[in-house]
């Protein structure tokens, strides 16, 4: 059981030394760990906090590669560096490629730009003319769910309080208390600094209000 899990159990009224419902086994802690993993995935999805580098050896004439990281899912690509050419590749997209060069899939040369397709495919323009270069990809990796209390939790330290509230909110929601769940979920958004950005659009409709006496009506 890691520190975040202990904080969650304390907030929901469990004895961390001898838990009653969420016992310290893989099965017993599964609901809490799933909530924490979901929160971490959401935070990385929003902030791009968990980055990792991969090396992609290019093949002659092949322009598209499907990337499947071992430790998580490909969030997005932040930097692409050509090891041989020692230059940074610019990000582009299909619209721009078709606009500047309808035969963009035909030419081969040293890749100068890259683009992403779908969730896990990267394309290079121009496609490599030889199997010599290696691309250094820096990607935001959305981590897989952790499984045991000893696993590394890939989370920025200051977000751990927010994650605790996320898991507590899910606990209360799964116990049928929507009010308590809502309270902790708002604390989670507060912890991330996202409440002002997202919650007002959903919860509040802003309007001007005056407490003056209404204008007297005739008659």
């Amino acid at each position, binding site marked *: 059981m890691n520190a975040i899990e202990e904080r969650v159990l304390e907030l929901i009224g469990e004895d961390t030394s001898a838990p009653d419902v969420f016992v310290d086994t893989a099965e017993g802690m599964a609901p809490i760990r799933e909530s924490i993993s979901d929160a971490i995935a959401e935070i990385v999805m929003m902030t791009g906090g968990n980055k990792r580098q991969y090396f992609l050896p290019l093949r002659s004439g092949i322009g598209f*590669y499907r990337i*499947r990281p071992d430790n998580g899912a490909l969030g*997005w690509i932040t930097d692409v560096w050509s090891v041989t050419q020692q230059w940074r590749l610019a*990000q582009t997209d299909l619209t721009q490629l078709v606009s500047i060069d*309808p035969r963009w899939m035909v030419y081969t040369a040293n890749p100068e730009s890259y683009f992403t397709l779908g969730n896990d495919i990267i394309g290079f323009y121009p496609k490599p003319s030889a199997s010599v270069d290696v691309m250094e990809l820096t990607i935001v990796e959305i981590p897989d769910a952790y499984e045991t209390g000893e696993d590394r939790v890939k989370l920025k330290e200051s977000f751990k309080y927010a994650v605790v509230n996320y898991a507590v909110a899910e606990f209360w929601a799964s116990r049928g208390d929507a009010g308590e769940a809502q309270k902790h979920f708002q604390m989670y958004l507060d912890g991330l600094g996202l409440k002002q950005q997202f919650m007002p659009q959903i919860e509040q409709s802003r309007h001007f209000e005056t407490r003056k006496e209404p204008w007297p009506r005739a008659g």
Partner: protein
Amino acid sequence: MNWTAELVKMRRLLRDPSGNIWTEAFLRHLYNDVSQDFQHKTNALEDVVAQRVPAVYQFAYQFDWEWRFLPTDISQFYQCLQQHDEKVFCHRWEPQEVTGISADVADYGIHFTQPWEAYTSETPGDVVKMRFPANFGAMRFIAYDEEPIDALTRKLVQSTDPSNVTKEGIPVGYYRDSDVDNTYVLYPRPSAAFANELSGEALALYASGDTEDANAGTIAVRLSSSDLGDGASMDIVDTTNNVFMVYSVMPTELRAGGDEPDYPAFLRKYVRFGVVSRAYGGNNDGRIRSLSDYWGLRYTLGIEFTKRYMRNKRQDRDYRLMTHGVPARRSYRHPRLPDGYPATNP
């Protein structure tokens, strides 16, 4: 994580682990519905496929009634030849025969029951239909043999080319044939094909080294083009002499416990939230409005988060603002004073 695992998670949130209130079929229906809704609102799913020409089908059939005997839950099939007067005809002169007309109209060429037969050295008398992937939503980009092709209509093709059925060459466009069959036609018919690579006896289905993804309805997963190993593994998408398309995906419906949802694992929780919200909002013994509203809020926020995630994917772009029709950079040949200088009295 498959549908069974998703179901366990949702039932925990619904406080109904044994399924006493919400049945598996009911939740699965909601899950498929919410999956479509989530895709409509976020466009999070996109895929890439390289299709070989001609398309290869598992079965061909003639009459509509044959459909009920096909294993349609796993793939799609090719309806060959032409329907007429409760019969199926090959040649265009056959309807004349059965209606008692003695004249025989000239036909364009041979007819086939499998599209690959169109490439057996005779001129085909039918268009060669291709099939979009089963999860096809909308086209983003399409190319044949690495060159973009245009979206056409049958009307445009027939209006401009009297020999459009038999014309052969490098395709310049495609038009949709049938949304129900999920088919399209390349125009003109590609002269290059992989049919001569087919091996096997009788009805040859695949080129050597290929396998078929029956569930997705797309062919030609070439195992030898995959690099598997430590770190990031990769599939290589071959584009030469193939149709290459980028398309938005309509999520595949889940039907059984082992089915895998299309969404990446980190987005599936939002679909679950939407399902739980709708389940709590249903008119049955489990109806709790406050929880329906709470999970509905979580679902709505999930959509907003996903939209931001989609924007994050473009964060490495270098943008510059441009006005339509104005050159990117103005070239000042001479120093110039402001238009309003010198100020003069009216």
